[in-house]
C-alpha cells in the first residue's frame, strides 16, 4: 500500500511541470513567490524520492522497473521504448540529485538577484533531465536526457556566471558534445549490428546485455564500441586529459550551479560508465582494467599537484572533485567487490563533500567579494560557524574517519591493493600513489582553509546565519552521519555491487 503510488514517470517529469508553472504568465514575477514555490516543490520532490529509497531498503525489491505512460508505442518501429527503472545504486543517485537540488534552491536565495523566473525554470528542467539520465532503461532515451541537460546548464552558466562565463559554458557544451559524438557512434553501432545479427530492433539496455552475452559481436567492433562509450563518459567524469573544462566552468559559474556540477553532473558520467562499460562489456572492462587504472592514477596525482598551486578557491575545489572521480575510476578498475563498493560510495561522497566545499567557497566569495586566495584572510575570527563547519567538510575531503569519505577511500585502497592483476606489483604501486594523494589532499586543503580563516582580516565580516547556516550544517550532519553508519548506504546498493563484481569476475 505504501508503495502503490510510486511512479518514476511522475518523479522524472514532475519538475518539468513545476518549470511550466513558474514560466507561465499566470504565476507572476514576484521573486518571493517563485522562491517559495521552488523550495516547496523541491522539498516535496525530495520526500517523494525518499519513498523510492525506502522501497529499495525495506526489502520490497532491489529493482524497480516501469514502462511509463508513453509506453512501448513510443518510436516502437525503431525499437525505442521510453522505459525507466531504478536499482539500489540508482535510487541513491536519484535521491542525492533531488537533495542537492533542494540545497541549491535554498542557497540561491541571496545569490540569484536577477531573472528569477528563468533561473528556477531552467533549474527544474535540469533536474528532470538529470533524473532521466539515471532512470533511463533505453540507450537512446539515456542519450536524449544526456544531451537535454546541456541546454539548461549552458544557460545557467552563461546567464548568471561571472568572468568568462560564456566561454566556459561554450567549452562545457563543446566538450560534452564531442564526447557524445563518440558515444552516439558507439550506440548506433550497437543498435544496428544487433539488428543485423538477430533481426530485432531494440535499444533497451537489458536487450543489449543479452546480445552481448550471446557473443554475436565481433571483438574488434566490441572494442571500438567500448572505447566510444568510455571517451563519452571520460570527458564528463572528467579524467585526465579531458578535465580542463571543469575548472573553468566551476571558476565562472554561480555557487548553486557549481554544487550541482560537483554533486550530480560528474555522477552521471560515473553512472554511465557503470551502466554501459561495466554492465555491457564486463570482459573488455576486465581486459582494459590496467589501462583504466593507469589513467585513474595519472588523474589523481595530476589533480592533486595542480590543486596545490591554484590561487582561485574554486579551482582548488574543482581539482578535488577531479581527484575524487579519479579515485572512483581506480576503485572500479580494481575489479574487486571492495573496490566497486568504494567507487559507488565515493560517488555519493563526492556529492556531499563537493556540494559542501562549493557551498563554503561560495559563501566565502559572497562575504569577501573575491575568489583569489591571496586576497582572503582572517575570516575565522569573525565567522567561527563557517570556520568550524569548513573544518568538518575539509576533514571529510581528506578522508578522516567518522566522515563519509573515509570508508569510501578505505574500500578503494583495499580493493586496489587486492586487485587480481597479471602484474601483481601494479595495483600495489597504485595503492601507494593513492596514499600519497591523501597527503597531498591534506596539504592543499589546509593551505586553502588556513589562507581563508587564519591571519588578520582587513575588515569585519558577518558570520553565516539563516538559510546559509542551515545548508552547510545539513551537509556537515550527513557527512558525519554516513561516516559513522556507512552500512546504511552500502546495504541499499549491495545487490548491485555484488552483481557487478560477479560480472567482472566471470
Amino acid at each position, binding site marked *: 500500500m505504501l508503495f502503490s503510488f510510486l511512479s518514476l514517470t511522475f518523479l522524472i517529469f514532475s519538475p518539468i511541470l513545476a518549470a511550466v508553472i513558474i514560466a507561465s504568465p499566470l504565476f507572476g514575477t514576484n521573486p518571493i513567490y517563485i522562491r517559495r514555490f521552488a523550495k516547496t516543490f523541491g522539498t516535496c520532490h525530495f520526500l517523494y524520492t525518499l519513498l523510492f529509497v525506502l522501497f529499495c531498503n525495506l526489502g520490497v525489491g532491489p529493482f524497480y522497473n516501469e514502462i511509463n505512460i508513453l509506453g512501448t508505442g513510443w518510436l516502437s518501429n525503431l525499437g525505442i521504448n521510453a522505459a525507466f527503472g531504478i536499482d539500489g545504486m540508482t535510487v541513491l543517485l536519484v535521491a542525492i540529485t533531488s537533495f542537492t537540488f533542494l540545497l541549491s534552491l535554498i542557497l540561491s536565495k541571496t545569490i540569484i538577484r536577477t531573472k528569477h523566473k528563468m533561473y528556477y525554470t531552467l533549474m527544474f528542467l535540469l533536474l528532470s533531465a538529470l533524473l532521466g539520465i539515471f532512470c533511463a532503461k533505453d540507450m537512446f532515451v539515456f542519450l536524449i536526457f544526456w544531451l537535454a541537460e546541456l541546454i539548461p546548464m549552458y544557460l545557467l552558466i552563461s546567464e548568471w556566471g561571472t568572468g568568462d562565463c560564456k566561454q566556459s559554458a561554450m567549452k562545457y557544451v563543446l566538450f560534452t558534445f564531442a564526447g557524445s559524438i563518440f558515444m552516439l557512434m558507439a550506440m548506433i553501432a550497437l543498435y544496428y549490428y544487433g539488428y543485423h545479427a538477430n533481426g530485432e530492433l531494440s535499444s533497451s539496455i537489458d536487450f543489449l546485455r543479452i546480445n552481448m552475452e550471446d557473443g554475436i559481436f565481433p571483438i574488434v567492433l566490441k572494442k571500438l564500441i567500448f572505447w566510444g562509450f568510455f571517451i563519452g563518459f571520460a570527458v564528463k567524469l572528467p579524467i585526465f586529459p579531458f578535465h580542463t573544462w571543469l575548472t573553468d566552468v566551476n571558476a565562472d559559474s554561480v555557487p548553486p550551479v557549481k554544487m550541482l556540477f560537483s554533486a550530480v553532473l560528474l555522477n552521471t558520467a560515473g553512472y554511465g560508465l557503470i551502466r554501459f562499460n561495466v554492465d555491457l562489456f564486463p570482459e573488455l572492462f576486465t581486459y582494459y582494467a590496467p589501462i583504466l587504472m593507469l589513467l585513474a592514477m595519472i588523474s589523481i596525482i595530476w589533480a592533486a599537484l595542480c590543486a*596545490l598551486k591554484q590561487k582561485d578557491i574554486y579551482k582548488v575545489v574543482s581539482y578535488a572533485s577531479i581527484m575524487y572521480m579519479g579515485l572512483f575510476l581506480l576503485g572500479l578498475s580494481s575489479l574487486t567487490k571492495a573496490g566497486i563498493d568504494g567507487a559507488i560510495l565515493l560517488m555519493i561522497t563526492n556529492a556531499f563533500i563537493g556540494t559542501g566545499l562549493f557551498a563554503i567557497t561560495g559563501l566565502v566569495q559572497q562575504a569577501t567579494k573575491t575568489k583569489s586566495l591571496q586576497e582572503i584572510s582572517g575570516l575565522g575570527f569573525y565567522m567561527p560557524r563557517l570556520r568550524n563547519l569548513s*573544518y568538518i567538510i575539509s576533514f571529510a575531503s581528506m578522508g578522516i574517519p*567518522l566522515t563519509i569519505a573515509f570508508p569510501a577511500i578505505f574500500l578503494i585502497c583495499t580493493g586496489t591493493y*587486492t586487485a587480481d592483476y597479471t602484474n601483481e606489483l601494479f595495483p600495489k604501486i597504485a595503492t601507494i600513489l593513492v596514499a600519497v594523494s*591523501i597527503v597531498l589532499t591534506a596539504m592543499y586543503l589546509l593551505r586553502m582553509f588556513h589562507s581563508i580563516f587564519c*591571519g588578520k582580516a582587513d575588515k569585519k565580516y558577518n558570520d553565516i546565519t539563516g538559510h546559509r547556516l542551515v545548508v552547510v550544517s545539513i551537509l556537515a550532519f550527513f557527512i558525519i552521519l554516513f561516516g559513522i553508519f556507512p*552500512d546504511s548506504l552500502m546495504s541499499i546498493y549491495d545487490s548491485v555491487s555484488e552483481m557487478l563484481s560477479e560480472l567482472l569476475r566471470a
Partner: protein
Amino acid sequence: MQFFTDNILLIFILPIIAAGLAFSAKIFKFSVSENTVKFSTITASVVSLVFASALFYSYNFGGVSPFEIYTNWLRLGETNLSLGILIDKFSTIFFLGFSIIAFAANCLMVFKYKDDSKFCQYIGYLNLFTVFSELLIFSQNIPQAYILSILTGVFAYLSSDLAEEKSENSSLSLILNRIGDVAFLIGLIVFISFVINSDVQEGSSLLAFSELHMFAPDFYVYLSDAGFYTACLFIIIGIVAKTGMFPMYNIFENQSKMPAPMYSTICSLTIGTGLFLFVRLISMFELSETILNTIYILSAITIIVCMILFLFVNNRRSYYMQAMAAILFLPVPKTLFYIVFAAFVLATLTDIILQPQCILIKLPTPIQNVLKSIENISNLYRWFGDNIVDFFANFTKVVDKYIINGFLKIINILTRFISWCVSLTQNGNIQSYIAFGIIGTAAILIVYILLIIGIGEM
C-alpha cells in the same frame, strides 16, 4: 564489577556531552553557561576516573578474565570491518593512566585557565581528544585502532591550531601525522589482504588484537622476511609519526603555544597511544629481529637528538617528552605505564617551573648552528615540500606546454600531408579519392581530439 563493564559506554558518552556543551557555549551562543561547561567536564573526568580505578582493580587483582565485544561496521568485500571493545589487564592499566592525566588536566584547566578567552573551545577539544585516546586503548582490532589514532591526531591538531598564531606550524604537524596515517594504512592493507586471501582468521572480527599472536607467524611465513619487514616498517612509520620519534620529532614543538595542561595531556596521551599500539603489535614485531633493531636504532637516535636539543635550545619541553618517549621503546613493555605518567608530570613541571629560568649552556657558534639546523627540521620539511611541489607544478606546466606545442606541430604536419593528398587527387583516379577521403576523415577526427585535449590549464 558487572556494572562497570555493562556501562563502559558512559565514559565515552559523558566527555562527548561535555564537549558538545563547551562548543555550544562558545560558538552557537546557546544558553549554556561556563559553569555548566566546567561542571560537565569535571563530572566526565571524575566518572572516567572511578571507572578506571574499578576496572584496574578488578582486572589486575580481582582475577576477571578479558572482556571482548564487537559489531560489524563496514563491509569489506567478503569480510567485515568491526568496531568493538577489548578490556584486559593491559588496557585497564593504560586507561587508569589516561584517566588520571585527563582528570588532572581538566582540574588545571578549570581552576587555572578559566579566564582564557578560548577556554570553552579548549575544554571541548580536550574532552574529544581524551575520549578518542581512551577509545583507542579499548580498541578490539587493528583497523579500529588505526581509525582512532587518526582522530586523536586530528583533535591534537585542532587544539594546537586554536592556540597557534602561525597556522603553518599546526598544519605541518597535521601533515606529518597524515604521512604517518598513510604509512599505517598501507601496512594495514597488506595485513587485511593477507587475512582475506588466506582465510587464516575465523570466529572473531578482522585483525582482532586477541588473535594477533595466532596469525602473526602465518603472516610472516606468507610474506617472507623482506615482505614482512616492509609491511611492518609502514606500520612503524605510523607509530613513529604518532610518538614524535626521529625524524618526525618536531610535531610537539609546534603545539607548545597551548596552555600547559592541554599541551601536556596531548603530548603524553599521544605518546601513550603510540606506545599502546607498539605494545599491542609487539607479538608481530618480535617475529623479525630486523624490525626490533629498526625500532631500537630509531629510539636511540631520538633519545640522542632530543636530549641534546633539550640541553641546548630554548624550546625544551617537547624534546624532553620525546626523549622520554623514545626511552620507552627500549625496556620491557610492563614499565611503560609508569613512564607515560611520569612524562606527563615532568612535562607539566618543566612548563610551570623550569621554563622561565631557561638555563642554557653557551656553545661555540658552529655547534650552535648545527643544533639550530637539527632543531629546525620543520624548515627542511618545508623546503622539501615547497621545492618538490614547485618541481611537479612546473613539470605539469611544461608537459602541458609540450603537449600543446607537440599537437600543434602534428597539426602542421597533417596540414602539409593533406595538401600532398589533395595534390594526389589531381591525378583523378578512384584510389586517390578513397585515400583522400580516409585521410581527410582521420585528420578531422584527430584535430577534434587535439582541440579537446589542447585547451589545457595554461
